[in-house]
């Protein structure tokens, strides 16, 4: 097996898993929004912002792809070290992005439901939603640092 295969599997995991996570996350929040709109139509702006929050993990996955998937090393001469690094980075960012986005979506959905029920919880939900995001950020930073180690 050529090492380049491992590298591309890693990149696929990175973009796919974090993208799937974001898709699930925004869907969970979006479903809550539709329910909340039935009770309180005016707060749609808040619902929209909270629904958009879990979307950032997909962005991190894509950003990670841009950092690791572009450049000179992705060719048939890639070493096992480099492709292993890319695979590792892809796996870590993909997995963390997947689960943190889904869970962040659940936090946001609860906040949206709360606003729909008439409680003033937008600001605090925003604060709480940032906490799962931190781990995706840390994973993104780790992926970036791996790039520094393998070129």
């Amino acid at each position, binding site marked *: 097996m050529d090492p380049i295969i491992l590298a591309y599997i890693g990149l696929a995991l990175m973009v796919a898993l974090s993208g799937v996570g974001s898709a699930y996350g925004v869907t969970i929040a979006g479903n809550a929004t539709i329910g909340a709109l039935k009770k309180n139509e*005016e707060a749609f702006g808040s619902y929209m912002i909270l629904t958009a929050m879990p979307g*950032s993990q997909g962005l*991190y996955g894509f950003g990670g792809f841009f*950092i690791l998937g572009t450049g000179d090393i992705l060719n048939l001469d890639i070493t096992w070290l480099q492709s292993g690094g890319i695979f590792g980075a892809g796996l870590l960012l993909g997995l963390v992005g997947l689960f943190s986005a889904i869970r962040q979506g659940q936090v946001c959905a609860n906040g949206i439901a709360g606003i729909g029920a008439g409680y003033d919880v937008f600001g605090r939900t*925003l604060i709480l939603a940032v906490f799962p*995001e*931190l781990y995706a*950020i*840390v994973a993104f*930073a780790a992926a970036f640092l791996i790039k520094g180690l393998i070129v």
Partner: protein
Amino acid sequence: MIVPMKKYSFLIYHKDYVEFLDRLRDVGVLHVIEKQTGEIEDENLRNNYGYVNQLNATIKFLKRRNIDQEPEIEGKDGMVILEELQGIENERESNLQKLAVLKKDILTLEPWGDFSISDIRRLKSHGLTIRFWITSASKFKEEWLSEYNLEVITESGGQKYFIIIQQEDEKIEIDAEEVRLPESSLSELNEQYRDTHQIIKKSDDVLDLYAKKYIPLLEKTRDDIIQTIDYEKVILSTEKQAEDKLMLLEGWVPVDKEKDLLDFLDKKGILYVQSKPGKDDKIPIKLKNTWFARLFEPIGKLYSLPNYSEIDLTPFFAPFFMLFFGFCLGDAGYGLLFVIIATFVKRKIKPELKSLLTLVQFLGISTVIMGILTGTLFGIPLFETNLPVYSDIQRQFQKRNTDINQQMFNWALMLGAIQIIYGMFLRAFNKIKQFGFRYSISTFGWIIALLSAGLIYIAGKGQNTDILLIAGYIMFSFGGVMVLFFNSPDKNILINFGLGIYDVYSMLTSLIGDLLSYIRLFALGVSSAILGFVFNEIAIGMSPDIPVLKQIVFLIIILFGHGINIFMATLGSFVHPMRLTFVEFYKNAGFSGGGKEYKPFKK
């Protein structure tokens, strides 16, 4: 700092009480000690709360109609207007429902056309019942036409609508759905629909009229009721003494406002007792800080006000918060945007929001500085360019086999260590303030032990540092003794030792966790810089080679990308330093919190 408070108790003759309360409200400095019971039980108070909610809802509803205002306040009673509006709204609601039912009936009747119900009734009185059926075209059987007096009325959407004229007791057995039609004819229903629609439109016009004239009146009525609520709450908090002939009222006054109150009391000859706060009193908190720390008070309030006996930590976390925000956002370009926009908006905004914008300016300045230090400008990595200072420093980095990111990692941990030790100093001083010097010895011991451990580590790495090393070890032992044997001054030495060992274990684990938590500063700082860089690359890479289109696509991607990045990164840069302040810093500073805000009884 927390403004010192004094407790005042007043004894007023019941006949003079109302006037006393009015004058007291004018002075506006007493924070009344509220009795817990009685507030919810009082019907009057509950009603007033209800009115305030109703007024708020109605004002919001009227404002949404977006009509130009021509206020009319004279000679009208806000509560009467509220009642009228509620009546109009209820009627409108029921009319809307009626409209919905009519619509449904019209849709049911439409396929059958406009026929007269009285004709149907007349036929029935002669023994002929007209029954209405629907079935799908595929289920319709042609033999029914000969079996029964069947007439197909219409066919639509794959469904056949037909009637059967039933004679006397004729049996009808077919596989179709019989429908019950409304009692009115189609033209009657349509007329009713039009009429109801007109009524609703008229009530909309009336509501617009109310929206034009009465919003300020409703707002004034609501504010008056809120004043009344405050008044009633004070009355409820008054204790009646001497067979209800004397009123006892207690409250807190900040010492800087004491003179106003004393002038009033002496002028009116009112009997009062003044006392210092006791240990078990729940004293309200009024903060007094320099203009800089005051900008950060709203952030502190998001978590909790300090309790009366401890130090207000706002001036101590303020500079750290500013620094951490800048570190996390870390892009000189974004910081510059904040400063410029905040300066511009500040001129046009109402006074209450000015301090918020000043805070934004400071956070922006901090971001610019940190952006320059970490070498990021709108996502451009300055250390990888050929700029004068940056390229020199980059060469130095490369000589030592490191880079700016590695330095940022170290800085994040160092800032964390500094804030933690700073917090421990504050805890020591807090202990001195609350309990006396003996109780602070073990905290100082920890500080000494940690600093000397750091010294030993640094000395171990250098050369010719034997003296420093020895000094470090001595200080460490000294600190260790303080921790192990002085943590509980009022217990004997063996218990102190036991508790000391436990203290070492719990402190070490929590310190490691706390220190590592500061890595988030590095992670956030690096990620916002990288994302900016990535969007720049995407914009360059994806813009086509066609002259004008290239610039447009580039601009769109840049604006969109950096826009998202600014939003997400700012949110993170605000929330995570806040978390570091409220969890790591407050914990190490021994903050307990739970203070209640100072809310004086005033107009």
